[in-house]
């Protein structure tokens, strides 16, 4: 009887879902115990953070700031992916273009994010265009590196199939070229989304009057650590949702042929 209960997948600790739940509960327990032992405002307990989180969600303006930040993330992510993918494909396919642009690319890749943010605010003013440009410019070089390598790894023999069967250029690109690039695009997207939302917070902190980054700065000045935790958790929750509800299903769909 006891063995039967243990063998039940919903109760078996070695089941991946149960292991994840256990790991999360363990983190909460460590957090609760540490905050109880420290007894200081610098590490509020999960209970206090939860109360603030719910209160801010219902009565405060957390949803508004969350929405603004999410919008900036989506916009900057889309621009970075489109420009980075376009340049990556072009530089991966054309040797001379790569020689021409590689220096610029290395310069941008090694310029600190903070420098790009400050320069964008100085050149374009403290506005939305500067904020989005700064985030996108920080991410474009990383996307470019991944996509350029992907383009170099394209199997030319597959493209020859399109050539001998006289497939038109558009179809050759969409049906023969791009699918080979999907793993690289997904890798760039996954790395991009996690990097971009972190940069968006810095951009908001330095030059915007709304968004999670702006609020975190406000709470920092008030030394309100519990609210910093609550706002951070809200955005982490959104990004986990994006990972599991959007990116992972797309990846599973694109990689279906690998798993059969």
């Amino acid at each position: 009887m006891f063995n039967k209960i243990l063998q039940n997948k919903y109760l078996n600790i070695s089941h991946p879902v149960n292991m994840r739940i256990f790991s999360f509960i363990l983190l909460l327990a460590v957090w609760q115990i540490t905050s109880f032992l420290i007894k200081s405002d610098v590490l509020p307990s999960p209970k206090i953070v939860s109360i603030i989180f719910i209160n801010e969600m219902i009565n405060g303006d957390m949803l508004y700031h969350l929405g603004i930040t999410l919008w900036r993330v989506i916009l900057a992510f889309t621009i970075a992916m489109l420009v980075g993918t376009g340049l990556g494909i072009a530089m991966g396919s054309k040797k001379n273009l790569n020689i021409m642009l590689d220096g610029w690319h290395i310069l941008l890749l090694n310029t600190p994010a903070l420098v790009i943010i400050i320069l964008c605010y100085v050149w374009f003013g403290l506005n939305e265009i500067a904020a989005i440009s700064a985030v996108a410019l920080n991410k474009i070089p990383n996307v470019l590196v991944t996509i350029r390598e992907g383009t170099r790894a394209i199997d030319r023999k597959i493209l020859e199939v399109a050539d001998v069967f006289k497939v038109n250029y558009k179809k050759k690109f969409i049906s023969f070229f791009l699918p080979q690039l999907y793993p690289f695009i997904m890798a760039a997207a996954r790395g991009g989304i996690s990097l971009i939302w972190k940069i968006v917070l810095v951009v908001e902190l330095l030059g915007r009057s709304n968004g999670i980054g702006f609020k975190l700065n406000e709470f920092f000045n008030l030394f309100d650590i519990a609210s910093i935790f609550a706002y951070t958790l809200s955005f982490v929750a959104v990004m986990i949702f994006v990972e599991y509800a959007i990116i992972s299903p797309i990846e599973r769909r694109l990689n279906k042929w690998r798993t059969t």
Partner: protein
Amino acid sequence: MENNIKKEPLQMPHDLLVDIREKSYENKNKPSYNSAIKNMKFIVPQGQFCCIVGPSGCGKTTLLNLLSGLDENLNGTIMYQDNSIPKNWPIGYMFQEPRLMPWLTVKQNVAIVTQQTAEEIKLSETLINEMGLNNYMNSFPSELSGGMQRRVAIARAFVNRPKILLLDEPFISLDETVGNLLRQMLLKLWENQKTTIIFVTHDLREAIYMSDRILFLSKGPSKVIHDLNISINRPRELNDKKLDTLRTKLISNHPDILSGNI
């Protein structure tokens, strides 16, 4: 290298005319006088099954690349039905490897090279059925054996109803049983569609079994050194003694023919 494709009158209409004065190596490290093909001329009548046999590196694949339009850089003429072959003209091709898209199903792999009209998708399904793969229509290439993948490649080669079908040693590295099955499937489709076939092979027995005619090529720079019509009636049996007799006779008369010397 000049791209000198001129319109010339054909001796026989509706034939494939190949008249290559010179095709040089693309590799810049090789000297310019080192031609891959020189003074190669032949005409293939519509619907003929023509095998090309020659030693390794004699330019057989180069010839197929020129015929398919993958390589347009030649000094000479390639014409079909009195005209230069248009760039968008459908040509069937089967490579040494199946070259299927691993992310597409069997049905998608065949249909992808068409305009994907309802009629063409139906034809894709019919060809897949004829290849005996009706239960694998929605399988991915990774789920198929090497022989089955080649059957998909045969279906894909015929799906555009090509006037010319080019095959570059398509059954190489298959075991004899699977190879023979695929040869019979190919012959059946060819007899139904009467496509002009240019079939490159190293295997003289395969060439005699399959073809109406065999063109033997010399070592590079390549040219036609022997043109042999195969007069054995169809359908041919794989174990027909006439095949072996002809092969033996050919080799005894021309001992160096397979090495490109005669």
